């Protein structure tokens, strides 16, 4: 007798497929700027999100267990939330240029999550709480936001260092010749702050036909990228704060203390501190830009450590793998 694949696994394959093809389309869009690739990628990515939400619902319907309480479930939620947050920012701030990278990362995490699928497992006593439905989505949503901010930070850093690699000497003059008119350097500074802070070397190299420079040149300016990172971190940090707070409330109910200095709690606190440092430094103009982008990128590394490092390598109260 032929055995049918469960509905949730079919939906998972559809979601994964949609993400992979969507990511490839958006990556091709990033490099070619052919609009049709973007118009192909967007519906695919949205279809991936819809399929994944349906997968989570189907899994719940089949198993009657919230599919968030192990690495498979949380990674699935992580990828769908990061893509959903990305879609919001892409529509709101025209962020589609970063789509290929975000969706590709989400697909990688989802594929890795699938390897942890051990079948249906009821929750251990400490996870049998309504707090699981509040705390886990909040924390995972913050991780998703930080992943999007990480991608934009990485693109910022690539653009910044490419700009530097092109050489600082005579940059403004070259820019002025390529497209900025006859303005001298001080005039350019006074006339348009966007030029002052952006990438004149890339602009001139793009005008001269450098393909890589043309990719970077069609991205938002460095200050605009910096603000984008800030806006995304400003979504992630309150979510992480709320996640830690709800986690503390749950811990108070389950373990008798709202804070146990468990490795997961302290790793989350460390990530929170890194992003708090980001927010403090972003208040100072001298620290905006490349330094802030580095801190945002490091922040995501701490998130990854908190997510995988603590779950897989360090034993504690949060060691829920399967």
């Amino acid at each position, binding site marked *: 007798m032929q055995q049918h694949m469960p509905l949730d696994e079919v939906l998972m394959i559809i979601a994964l497929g949609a993400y992979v093809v969507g990511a490839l389309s958006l990556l091709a869009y990033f490099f070619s700027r052919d609009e049709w690739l973007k118009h192909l990628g967007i519906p695919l990515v949205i279809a991936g999100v819809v399929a994944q939400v349906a997968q989570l619902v189907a899994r719940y319907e089949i198993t009657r267990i919230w599919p968030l309480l192990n690495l498979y479930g949380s990674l699935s939620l992580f990828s769908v939330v990061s893509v959903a947050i990305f879609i919001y920012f892409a529509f709101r701030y025209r962020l589609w240029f970063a789509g290929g990278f975000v969706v590709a990362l989400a697909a990688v995490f989802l594929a890795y999550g699938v390897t942890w699928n051990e*079948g249906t497992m009821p929750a251990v*006593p400490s996870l049998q709480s309504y707090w699981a439905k509040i705390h886990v989505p909040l924390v995972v949503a913050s991780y998703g936001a930080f992943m999007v901010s990480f991608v934009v930070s990485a693109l910022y850093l690539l653009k910044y260092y490419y700009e530097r690699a092109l050489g600082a000497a005579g940059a403004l003059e070259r820019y002025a010749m390529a497209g900025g008119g006859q303005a001298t350097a001080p005039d350019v500074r006074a006339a348009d702050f966007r030029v002052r802070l952006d990438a004149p070397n890339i602009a001139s190299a793009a005008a001269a036909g450098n393909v890589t420079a043309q990719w970077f040149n069609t991205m938002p300016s460095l*200050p605009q990228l910096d603000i984008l990172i800030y806006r995304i971190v400003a979504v992630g940090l*309150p979510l992480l*704060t*709320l996640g830690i707070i709800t986690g503390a409330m749950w811990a108070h109910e389950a373990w008798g203390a709202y804070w146990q*200095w468990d490795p997961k709690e302290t790793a989350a606190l460390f990530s929170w*501190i890194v992003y708090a440092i980001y927010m403090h430094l972003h208040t100072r103009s001298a620290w*905006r830009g490349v330094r802030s982008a580095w801190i945002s990128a490091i922040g995501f590394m701490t998130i990854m450590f908190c997510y995988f490092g603590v779950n897989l390598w360090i034993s504690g109260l949060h060691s829920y793998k399967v």
Partner: protein
Amino acid sequence: MTMLRSYYEEFVRTFGNVLFAVCLLLVWGLMTLAGVVVEQGKDPAEYFSAYAPPLARLILRLNVDNIYHAPYYVGIIGLILLSLAVCTFKRVIPARLPALRPVKIDKIPLNAAIDVPQDEGSTRARVEQFFRDRGWQIRKREFDGAEWTFADKHNWARRGVLVAHVGFVIIAAGTSVYWAKGFSGDMPVLVGQTVEVPHRRAALRLNGFTFKVQPIMTKSGMVYQPIDYVSDVTVTGGNGASKRETIRVNHPIDIGGTLFYQSSYGFAMKFLVTHDGIRSPELSGKTYFPGDTVTLPGGSRQIEVLQFIPTVDRQTGQPSSDPRINDPAVALAASAGGQTTPPVVVPMRTWIDVGDGWRITPQQYVMVSGLQYRYDPGVPLVGIGAFVLLAGLVISFYFLPARLFVCVTPQTRGCTVGLAAMTVKGYDIFETQFDELQAELRKALAPPEQRRTLSFAEAN
């Protein structure tokens, strides 16, 4: 006095500096990370087995094995609170948008000049109405005969950082309340045992304990998943009134403000100890926990109770991974004269000969409910602080205090509206909004026929 003042000023300058605060946060973060990487509260020998001896010595000497309670960890949090307080009074509270004074509009990065073919008075009125309709608070001032209009939005949100800082302080205060007045601890209770509730005139009796484990076949093999731990207790208050309660994970009970939680479970053992066939009442009457020793009289011989084994694999005679109680046994090790024998698995109700006529028979196991108790009067304060902190973050991230400077200058034909914008977070963050705002203003100030053309052009 002058010297004191200069010290004070230096202190305020240092602790009020954002970069200093960031350095403190960084140190705090790194210490926290050290506590994640280095396992906390272990036996010194475990550090020596896990790390190279010099590193293990360093870990122990620097208290990294218990870093979150080390004086320097508490100290750095204290310094952060101090810095936060100084920053709040020195920077956050005084922080404000510039005074209502004229500015050189073209020197502000976010600026625009809009030529309007209408008179100055009606244009000014329309500009004010335009901003008022969009929720801007309008104020007017006259400087050297020129009238300036100042439009503010979300000015109240300047207090967001202050609110976040206050939240942090409230959390710290709540934590201190626990240190001052709270208490907590672990309480393993045997089935049938009655214990005093610490600091309360009450007693708790464990009537029974049950646990439920479900065997599940996963893709990588059998997993025994714990499903439920339940303690059935009777609480007797100071007035003698008794009440039967159930304690489960996630469902603590409250005894006079002290919460009791289900945290773990275990097993204790009773043995029949005989010497030449005669029961030793002293050794046989005791209840032994894993780690306890049975010291046999008349020598240095000791029997260590290693662990209770719920199920012994019948084929191998070794402990099974099944935590359910099927074929229970006890692992014992004997030591004498400084030598210890390898562990031996002794099934229940079978005896083991330990020499010199001594026999030990594991006779009965008793379930132990691992309860935790905690009295923390600081919890409400910590909860309030957490939400105040969150509110502060939301205010400071999502509400941008901004000011527009508007000056209408008469020209030979009509007038020019000069517009500039400042925010407390720089210019870049407001760039898109400013572009949209000035485009809308241009449209609103355009003559009616031009407005129609614009709309038509936009529609296409």
